[in-house]
């Protein structure tokens, strides 16, 4: 069966939103080429997850089963995705740019001897050739590349998070759930997770916040972040930062926004002392409104901002926060 195979990911809360986004990509490709969209999910998948996938666009759900898949290791996931790909021969295989997908995608592609396109923000079908063309940021987002797959199928594509919106769930959609025993060779597992150490979570998650206040190296040290925290509290938002801040140890690395950090899509993103390097912007280009406070009028951040103040945050920020406090109270 040729078609579009989505590498699905799920957890206790259900299907991952990144997988829902892939299903939307798959459906948009299928609307041109008319093929099936099917998703592979791994392990002891609850039925509700399979039905969620169908309601979000899957024509069928392959539930790949093997004892090794319940341990959640990446090596087993790679082997399982490889197996279903060999078994079903899709023309396109979609992965999400998650810890699992961004690694499993290329590894499956290497095993199949085909190319993989990482971190794509656009996936289209060329009408005449029926081949996929992807667009991906390169050089930290300073340039965009459009690429095609000249070789054999599958065309393996890793899609950046939040580049596509999931479809609206439609509970009346029909689809099949197909269990598949993949019988993996235990030798595929080459590493073992010993433990997971979760960072303490407090307040609104950066990825989910509708308001984000971001600080950069221009703040000069960790102390000013107390003011950003206060602003975020007033607005019900979260605090994030540039990589320079996290590398300096002023904030935890979990706060990093950007190409190698988190992708945020808030309604409002307020940056203070961030220069707007392309690698930072890669994580916040989905912000609806960007507001920047920076003392350098030529700084790149103002190219993406809709509102800006050119000034020293030490003077701008206190009066800004004070006025915000009065406004949100009234």
């Amino acid at each position, binding site marked *: 069966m040729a078609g579009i195979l989505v590498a699905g990911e799920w957890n206790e809360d259900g299907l991952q939103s990144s997988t829902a986004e892939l299903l939307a990509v798959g459906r948009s490709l299928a609307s041109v080429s008319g093929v099936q969209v099917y998703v592979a999910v791994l392990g002891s998948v609850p039925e509700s997850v399979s039905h969620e996938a169908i309601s979000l666009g899957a024509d069928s759900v392959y539930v790949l089963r093997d004892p090794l898949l319940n341990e959640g290791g990446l090596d087993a996931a790679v082997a399982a995705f490889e197996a279903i790909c060999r078994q079903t021969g899709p023309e396109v295989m979609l992965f999400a740019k998650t810890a699992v997908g961004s690694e499993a995608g290329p590894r499956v592609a290497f095993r199949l001897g085909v190319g993989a396109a990482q971190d794509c923000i656009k996936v289209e079908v060329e009408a005449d050739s029926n081949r996929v063309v992807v667009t991906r940021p390169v050089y930290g987002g300073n340039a*965009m590349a459009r690429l095609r797959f*000249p070789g054999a199928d599958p065309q393996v594509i890793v899609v950046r998070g939040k580049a596509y919106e999931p479809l609206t769930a439609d509970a009346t959609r029909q689809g099949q759930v197909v269990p598949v025993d993949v019988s993996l060779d235990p030798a595929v597992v080459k590493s073992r997770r010993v433990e997971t150490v979760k960072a303490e979570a407090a307040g609104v998650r950066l990825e989910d916040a509708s308001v984000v206040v971001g600080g950069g190296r221009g703040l000069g040290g960790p102390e000013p972040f107390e003011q950003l925290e206060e602003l975020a509290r007033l607005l019900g938002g979260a605090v994030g930062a540039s990589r320079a801040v*996290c590398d300096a140890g002023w904030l935890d690395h979990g706060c990093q926004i950007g190409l190698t950090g988190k992708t945020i899509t808030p309604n*409002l993103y307020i940056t203070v002392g961030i220069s707007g390097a392309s690698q930072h912007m890669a994580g916040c280009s989905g912000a609806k409104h960007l507001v920047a406070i920076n003392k350098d009028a030529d700084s790149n951040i103002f*190219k993406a*901002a809709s*509102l800006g103040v050119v000034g020293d945050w030490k*003077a701008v920020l206190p009066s800004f926060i004070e006025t915000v406090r009065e406004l949100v109270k009234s």
Partner: protein
Amino acid sequence: MALNVIVCAKQVMDPETPISAFKIDPDTMRVAPAAGVPPVVNGFDENAVEAALRLKDESGATITVISVGNGFVMDVMKKPLSMGADRLVLVEGDQVADLDSAATAYVLSETIKKIEDYDLILCGRQASDWDNSQVPLGIAEILGLPCLTVVQKVKAHGDGVVVHRSLDDGYEVVEAGMPAVVTVSNELGEPRYPNLRGIMAASRKAPTVWTAEDLNLDIGRLAPSLELIDLFIPVSDRRCEFVQGEDDADAGRKLALRLREEKLL
């Protein structure tokens, strides 16, 4: 027993190149090198060198840095040596210039096989030119080795390696046997600066240079698996409205009022 550590390091355009100097040559569909801005060793690869040096500090290691490409700037590529690495192997020539991820992984794997003695292969998590984060995965697949990505801490013990992999919300501890491929991220911490002794030692070391022939490469495997059809600089259509005031404090006040007008507060 001292470890043999291989670090894969790529020469890239300096990612701090000012955006105004970032140009694309439309004919070749390549980024034009910015005049007067020398290339650098990819940042994450310096993190990988640092990880190797920490292993060396702890229990001794021989560190071999390998790179595939063309037009190497020797002062740039010797930086890992001046930081404390022992040996530099450059695979150079027109045939191995501008390879894509799969081809690069193949050439690096052949280089690693020729080096023969290795316990750990450290790479950067991604190269700052094409931001692919694929080459190390390819090396692990080709050589059939464990693959541990986006790592912030590396410890070797006996014949195994234990790493901390950065996650969105914390980290996980993962162990594997050696040899293994590990990709290092900036959370590891700043790479050390070369000291004078290191710089002197590096200046006396000549790199080993290998070509496609030396590695008996199958030239057919160097062909790209993705076809570039366009490379362009994105344009932003946003225009910034600058909020002004009598002084900075007044501008801050007015900014809040503008946000209220826009119903953003």
